[in-house]
């Protein structure tokens, strides 16, 4: 197990390094901060001075090492070119709303996926199974941002039940969280269903039933515990997708999280902030993948020896 964790940790570090390189060079190679930030009247001397001030006259590799060193050692993502405050400050403020949104959405999705997936597996081809299949179909074809706007129109504008923007109270969280939950719900539900179907045909389930164990106990204790393994793994693996969905959702609902920060910074060309957000979101994804890898190896020892 220790070797396995060490191996996965090395892998995760490698991925993080690659992502830092890509996001640094992709943005800095093409970004033109002087053109972005200086007035149009600036002449060549002004531009040169400005670039020196930002340290842009140094070789790219040096800039990269400097940039990465500051991030890793001091949590310093550089200054925002537009807001003129440390990017880490902007990111720090936006971090919690995104975590809150992602957790709420994952909670809703899981809370719906488990009972629906279970029921549709147990009562195969029944009404509930068809409803589940239908949700999966619709969910996979629904553009998140459109769903968000539709929910706003129906529950915010027509029924006036829920606020459409803002983030002050938990009521504000409902529409964005439901929107984002619709993104992960289909896959989660399908996983629980197919996992249950597979497990229910196993010998140990038949044995439990033959012993006269209560059906509810067979389903929840014997079957679901095993069917839940892929759910754990995939929840970790698709965490990156969930964050991508959060970017979309935050933009639609003007939710003050990392996604909206990234989109706004991209639109005004504020590269240090964009890079910071990309790195933070990627770090979350890598950590979630790592946790899923280690978690599923812990639950199911067969994985370790693969």
């Amino acid at each position, binding site marked *: 197990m220790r070797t396995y964790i060490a191996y996965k940790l090395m*892998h995760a570090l*490698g*991925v993080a390094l*690659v*992502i830092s390189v*890509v*996001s640094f060079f*992709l*943005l800095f*190679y*093409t970004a033109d901060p002087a053109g972005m930030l200086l007035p149009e009247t600036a002449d060549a001397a002004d531009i040169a001075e400005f670039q020196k001030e930002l340290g842009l006259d140094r070789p790219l590799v040096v800039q990269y090492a400097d940039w990465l060193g500051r991030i890793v050692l001091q949590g310093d993502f550089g200054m925002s070119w537009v807001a003129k405050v440390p990017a880490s400050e902007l990111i720090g403020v936006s971090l919690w709303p995104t975590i809150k949104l992602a957790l709420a959405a994952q909670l809703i999705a899981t809370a719906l996926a488990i009972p629906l997936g279970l029921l549709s597996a*147990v*009562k*195969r*081809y029944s009404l509930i199974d*068809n409803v589940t299949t239908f949700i999966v*179909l*619709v969910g*996979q*074809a*629904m*553009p*998140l*941002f*459109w769903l968000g*706007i*539709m929910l*706003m*129109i129906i529950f915010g*504008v027509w029924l006036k039940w829920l606020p459409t923007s803002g983030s002050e109270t938990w009521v504000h969280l409902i529409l964005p969280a439901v929107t984002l939950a619709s993104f992960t719900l289909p896959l989660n539900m399908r996983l629980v269903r*197919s996992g249950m*179907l597979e497990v*229910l045909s196993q010998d140990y389930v038949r044995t439990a*039933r*033959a012993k*006269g164990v209560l*059906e509810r106990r067979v389903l929840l204790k014997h079957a679901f515990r095993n069917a839940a393994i892929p759910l754990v793994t995939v929840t970790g693996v698709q965490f*990156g*997708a969930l*964050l*991508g969905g959060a*970017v*979309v959702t935050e*933009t639609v609902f003007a939710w003050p999280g990392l996604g909206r920060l*990234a*989109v706004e910074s*991209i*639109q005004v*060309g504020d590269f240090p902030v*964009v890079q910071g*957000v*990309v790195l933070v*979101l*990627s770090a979350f*994804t*890598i950590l979630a*993948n790592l946790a899923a890898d280690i978690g599923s190896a812990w639950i199911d020892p067969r994985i370790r020896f693969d």
Partner: protein
Amino acid sequence: MNTVEAVVTREMDRTPSGVSVALKRTWQLRMGVFGLVLVLGLVGAAIFAPWVATHDPLEQDILARLQPPSFLAGGDASHLLGTDQLGRDLFSRIIHGARISLMVGLAAVLVSMTIGVVLGLIAGYFGGKIDALIDFAANAMLAFPFILLAMTLVIVMGASMENIILALGLSNWPIFTRVTRIETKKLREQEFIQAAIAQGLSHLRIISRHILSNLAAPILVIATVEIARAIIRETFLSFLGLGIQPPTPSWGLMLAEGRDYMLTLWWLSTLPGMAIFLAALGINLVGDALRDLLDPRMRQS
């Protein structure tokens, strides 16, 4: 009721009867046909847009701006779905939007499929260091928040249709690599491939003649679903102003413009979104049907 009876009835409850399985099959068939109809509608609208549309999608008529659809109160029969903030005919713009969406979706998937399949074949066939490298690159790409990557690429390269296609294509290849790599590995162990290697056939020939032909079905199924996802992603980039630029009729752009009137003129954002939804739904249904047809093993689940 004694225990044995209880077990038996439970068993009967659980095992789907022949009738319900048959019903399920018909339902699947119907959904497949429904999907096909939607896809044909999408492709038809894209190909015949100039003939289907009732107006020029770019023609502005300031006097007739923000008209409701013809089926709502105050609607005018000359504008089937009403007009937008510049008085352009919404129906004609949605029809022409099908062209943009389909083109971007197909081209983006072509890019990611080509890169992904080639890398997956190389990794799976040759194994060793090159395999580890490609697998690592694919994993790194998957850890990168997709939408941020696509947005970054669009920013770096500029927002034009070609660049959106490239951005969507370049950020999505690992999906194809993963499947191709694993399937190629499995095939590589099979006897007919071993025999081909023993015969001294060139690697290129083995890969193209024997491996690729066996991979065509799963790749086709993934590609279908990915077209739908690429369409949704393009509309999102356009929605953010990072995709197709005005006045080109992109569904995402139309949705963004309609959002400003969300409080009163709900159809302006609802209708373009409906177009995206139906297109994606149709493609996904066809993808499901294809999987059923091409891979009978999947039918049970």
